[in-house]
């Protein structure tokens, strides 16, 4: 959760001193073990509670809601393995670390299967305990953060239409607010400022128009009113046409465009219009999120009945944590550079829909500050022809 929960000035000491005191529960029937665990973990700044059997331990977990539980596997009463399972039932967020005096691969695997996060054989040194507890807590913090992120996302996803209307409202609200303030403050804003604001208003209305256009095409793709013809398409023809359209935009951004696809070599099965939409989006993105003196390279490669078309840029790249959401509707990478770049957050989800309709797939490789490569795999025309030939000859 890093600095999000810490007080200012506390951030540096976070690893040794958590901002909110985290609770750790130790469940072990051995008094000496409970005592030494308590001593080591309290010193690290955690609140530590110990219990001498599974029943009490489980009650403690329910009541104290600990971030982490240290559980001895061999105890009278409820067995350690069962305890791990039961802890997960009452509090799935609690990370369980198992300790045992009888370490075997089987017990370790068994504990992991029951949901334990890590395994520590007895006897262990204080350093080993500290290391494993810190690792367990880091895992706990990450999963809490992820869970929160998912909750926030789910709250909106549940009402998708509401969300769309929010996206449509946002630019409108900005324009309204500028106009309102211009009206309210007629005497005091400088002429330059007024001009700047009016320019922003125009930009935002353009953004709204682009959003409505993309939203409509997405709705049309889903509604199947988009007429499609599955034919043989020469890739180079499609790509060359798009690159030509964006020559000017690329030059204005200081980006160089290059196609490495030879003429009359790669043919795919698909709809020409759909293919245009897909590569149009990918190439525009590659220009938009590039750097000055950057490059966009389109290349193709045939393998196993498929043609893989790669659109590679030398731009800002996409941090790994955002990649799973990249093809979702309205997703945009949160970053200072991209805030200035207009975009609807719909382009890539349109691409994914169209590609999968043509029986293909789309994926991305990226490295931050080095660039991104989007790869579209489509059925090679030759492969289909051969398939049909085979069918024909076997008849």
């Amino acid at each position: 959760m890093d600095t999000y929960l810490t007080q200012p000035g506390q951030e540096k000491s976070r690893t040794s001193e958590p901002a909110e005191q985290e609770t750790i529960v130790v469940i072990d029937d051995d008094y000496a073990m409970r005592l030494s665990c308590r001593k080591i973990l309290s010193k690290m700044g955690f609140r530590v509670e110990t219990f001498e059997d599974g029943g009490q331990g489980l009650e403690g977990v329910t009541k104290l809601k600990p971030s982490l539980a240290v559980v001895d596997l061999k105890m009278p009463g409820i067995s350690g393995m069962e305890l791990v399972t039961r802890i997960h039932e009452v509090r799935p967020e609690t990370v369980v670390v198992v300790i045992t005096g009888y370490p075997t691969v089987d017990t370790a695997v068994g504990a992991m299967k029951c949901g334990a996060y890590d395994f520590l054989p007895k006897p262990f040194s204080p350093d080993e305990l500290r290391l494993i507890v810190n690792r367990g807590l880091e895992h706990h913090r990450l999963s809490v953060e992820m869970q929160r992120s998912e909750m926030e996302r789910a709250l909106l996803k549940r009402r998708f239409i509401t969300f769309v209307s929010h996206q449509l409202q946002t630019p409108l609200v900005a324009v309204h607010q500028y106009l309102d303030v211009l009206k309210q403050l007629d005497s005091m804003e400088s002429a330059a400022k007024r001009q700047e604001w009016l320019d922003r208003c125009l930009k935002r209305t353009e953004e709204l128009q682009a959003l409505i256009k993309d939203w409509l095409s997405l709705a049309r793709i889903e509604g199947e009113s988009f007429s499609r013809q599955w034919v043989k398409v020469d890739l180079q023809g499609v790509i060359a046409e798009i690159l030509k359209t964006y020559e000017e935009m690329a030059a204005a951004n200081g980006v160089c465009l290059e196609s490495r696809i030879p003429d009359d070599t790669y043919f795919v099965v698909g709809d020409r219009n759909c293919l245009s939409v897909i590569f149009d989006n990918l190439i525009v993105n590659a220009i938009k999120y590039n750097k000055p003196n950057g490059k966009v390279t389109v290349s193709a490669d045939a393998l196993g009945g498929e043609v893989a078309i790669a659109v590679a840029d030398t731009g800002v790249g996409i941090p790994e944590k955002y990649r799973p959401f990249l093809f979702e509707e309205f997703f945009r990478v949160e970053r200072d550079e991209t805030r200035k770049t207009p975009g609807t957050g719909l382009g890539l989800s349109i691409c994914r829909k169209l590609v999968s309709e043509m029986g293909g797939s789309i994926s991305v490789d990226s490295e931050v500050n080095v660039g991104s490569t989007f790869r579209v795999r489509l059925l090679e025309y030759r492969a289909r022809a051969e398939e049909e030939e085979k069918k024909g000859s076997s008849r």
Partner: protein
Amino acid sequence: MTSETEKILIVDDDRDFVEALSAFLEAHHYVVLKAHDGREGLKLAKMEHPDLIIMDIIMNERTEGFFTVQEIRRTVELKTVPIFILSSLYSQVTDFGIPPNSSWLAHDEFLPKPVNMPELLERVQRRMEERHRNPETPVGGKAEM
């Protein structure tokens, strides 16, 4: 009328919205602090202790504003700062499925977007006056979670 030292923190991911709103509030002699996501907003709130916070709910495709308000209320020095909650999506907080008696929201004000500027100014001035009259009154309520 208003003192130069009254600080208002605006947290909204739409930079144009923040620009327009802050120009308006600055014209009425408030000092405006700007943040564009929850994390930045929380950090500024903790560092600067603003007299009032204006918080958008939906930021970066998520309902980040709610969680930020919760985090703000967890900070001792910020338990009483008035928070104006903004959204273009609904006209009241309960529309988000938030119970009206949530202790961390109950004493804050909700404003639909676009914001009516004279109304905003009036509400801001009223809150500032209340704060001046009785700085000890916990405007944010008990704010226990």
